[in-house]
């Protein structure tokens, strides 16, 4: 009887999974294999694909714009991951601390930007960065300085996009950290205080270590998200000025959807995919290493 029940349970389980499963296979699994297959073809979207073996790889590795796009992507990741992890952690600790009032308000305030759509965020920040009419420009002028053309300056365009991204998405990480912080039993802190621990020591010996899983999660998610950046660059600079903010995903988009070079675009996308897997794997090994 018990065996039959278990079988029936299992059967029901699969049945519930089936609708989603079908969609998943059709729209995720199959296209994934198709796109990997496309890597070995030359395809201009409107015609029939032509088998070219490893030509796309050769082209890619000798394409200076590919390498610069990759570099820009890494640069962006470097600019955004540390703040989005460390700052999120610090802010959540602050919000969570006993001495702070209005926790709900603060949590909502920091999370609110995350609920905005990317177009709204990017267009608004685009206006803020405007060197003639923007807020920063007005502040510069007030102090008698020459406003910086943030999005039109080779040096500042990427950091400007990074700042917008940090403002926009930090709320999500803060919420993750808050959830983790609230899992730490207050008795640990009380015990530490009895032993005379300072705030600093509490942070380093209790808070940070106990949040190991959250650190790993936030960092991995953040790295993966940053490597895939597209929207902000697309809306705010279109890869400019002079291609200085062209990130890999934007280049893939241009090559595939604008210049009719789908096979080549697929190759770069596949490369990005492998890069992301590598990062995620390394990350988890590094941060969760000890626990294993």
């Amino acid at each position, binding site marked *: 009887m018990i065996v039959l029940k278990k079988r029936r349970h299992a059967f029901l389980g699969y049945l519930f999974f089936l609708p989603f499963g079908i969609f998943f296979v059709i729209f995720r699994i199959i296209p994934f294999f198709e796109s990997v297959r496309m890597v070995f073809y030359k395809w*201009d*979207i*409107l*015609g029939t694909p032509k088998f070219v073996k490893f030509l796309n790889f050769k082209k890619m590795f000798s394409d200076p714009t590919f390498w610069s796009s990759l570099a820009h992507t890494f640069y962006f990741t470097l600019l955004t991951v540390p703040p989005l992890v460390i700052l999120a952690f610090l802010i959540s600790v602050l919000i969570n601390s006993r001495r702070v009032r209005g926790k709900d308000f603060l949590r909502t305030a920091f999370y609110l930007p995350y609920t905005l759509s990317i177009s709204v965020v990017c267009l608004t920040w685009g206006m803020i960065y*405007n*060197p*003639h*009419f923007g807020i920063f420009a007005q502040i510069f002028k007030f102090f008698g300085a020459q406003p910086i*053309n943030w*999005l*039109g*300056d*080779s040096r500042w365009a990427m950091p400007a996009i990074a700042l917008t991204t940090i403002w926009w998405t930090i709320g999500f990480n803060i919420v993750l950290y808050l959830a983790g912080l609230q899992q730490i039993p207050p008795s640990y802190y009380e015990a530490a205080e009895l032993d005379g621990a300072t705030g600093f020591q509490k942070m380093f010996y209790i808070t940070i270590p106990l949040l190991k899983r959250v650190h790993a999660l936030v960092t991995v998610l953040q790295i993966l998200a940053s490597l895939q950046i597209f929207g902000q660059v697309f809306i705010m600079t*279109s*890869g*400019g*000025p*002079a*291609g*200085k903010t062209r990130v890999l995903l934007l280049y893939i988009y*241009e090559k595939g*959807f*604008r*210049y*009719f070079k789908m096979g080549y675009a697929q190759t770069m996308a596949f490369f990005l995919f492998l890069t992301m897997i590598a990062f995620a794997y390394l990350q988890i090994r590094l941060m969760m290493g000890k626990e294993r």
Partner: protein
Amino acid sequence: MRKVLLILLISFLTIALLTFGKVTITIWTFFGGGEGYIMTNLIKQFNQEHPDIEVQEQIVEWGQYYNKLLTAIVAGEPPDIGVMHLSVLPDYAERGALTPLNEFFPKSFLEDFVPEVINKAYFDGKLYAIPIDTHPMVLYYNKTVLKKAGLVDANGNVLIPKTWDELLEYAKKAKEKLGLDVGLTFETGPMLGERLFIAVYTQLGGKFYDPKTKTIHLDVEKAEKTYKILKRFFDEKVSQVIDYATGESLFQNDKTAYHINGVWAMAVYPTVEGLDFGVTSIPALPGSKPYTWADSHTWVIPKKPKMDEEKVKAAATFIKWFIEHTYEWAKAGHLPVLRSVLKSEEFLNLPMRKDYVDVINYVVPAPSMRGWTEMRQKMWDLGQAVILEDVTPADAAKELLSTIKEILEE
């Protein structure tokens, strides 16, 4: 009760019959601002005059238009009519994405078109597009600013620069005298890297695009000189890196003396309150004609896996009607491509048209060739790189040549 039901039934059937007899076609456009209104109103007018056809307009953002069109064609769901620049026509016609139009438009219909323009609507002997305008790049000048800066001649008329040196000189004076941020604004992406480049390069005597062989010849020396000439405006701080909207805004708010833009801005500028301005051809190098860049808008009928004959006929009807209303469309600022309209009193009496109708004689064809989409993106990048001093004019010219070679080899 029965009467009510009967009335409802009859009205339902009537509506059903009316919509049943109607052919609905979709049209995609990328016109915004002032010209957007003119287009939408024209479409509305067509719908009113043709109860058996309904044209539904979908306005797509300019920057995304071709991506979306391409995706739609691949998905088999393109619009029945789409707008398309003449310069990208080959990329689509060559790949079989468009419907040939020869059978819908007889020779007599095509005779009135400006030959240079209509000839580019053919590919491989077949007609793929019907041009509706030509829109060259021109120079706008702000009379308020120029008068305030004292840049007027003996008769009190504002100084209109005829050469690039004069433009630089006047713009600089206006900027310094009035403490402005800039003296001349123009968008530093396509306007600089592609359009101004082609214009100045041609003025230097270079032949950028050869319509016979459909390829691009680049004289590296002339290209380098072109970049140098354009870079001077930035070296002397008369111009700055700027986006399209800001460039226009500064001009409309009297914060700059000169502004380079396409004639499409004429759909808006005459309506801006308090803007006292004029328009003329862009400056020329001494000894050269004021060659300038221009492209043309056209209507195309994208290919579907299964073409609906009724819809294609309705589309052709709309296109024919639209051409008959070329004058209306010309109110958007563009130059019409029908010779009869170009010469007409009606057209020439539109605001300031007389000041730039001549420009059509100095228009340099935007390259109509495969790979142009990618090539011009590279030119936009290079233009910015030059003024940001990431690359010297000499290196930029060399890079442009190698990019052209690469793309043509594909």
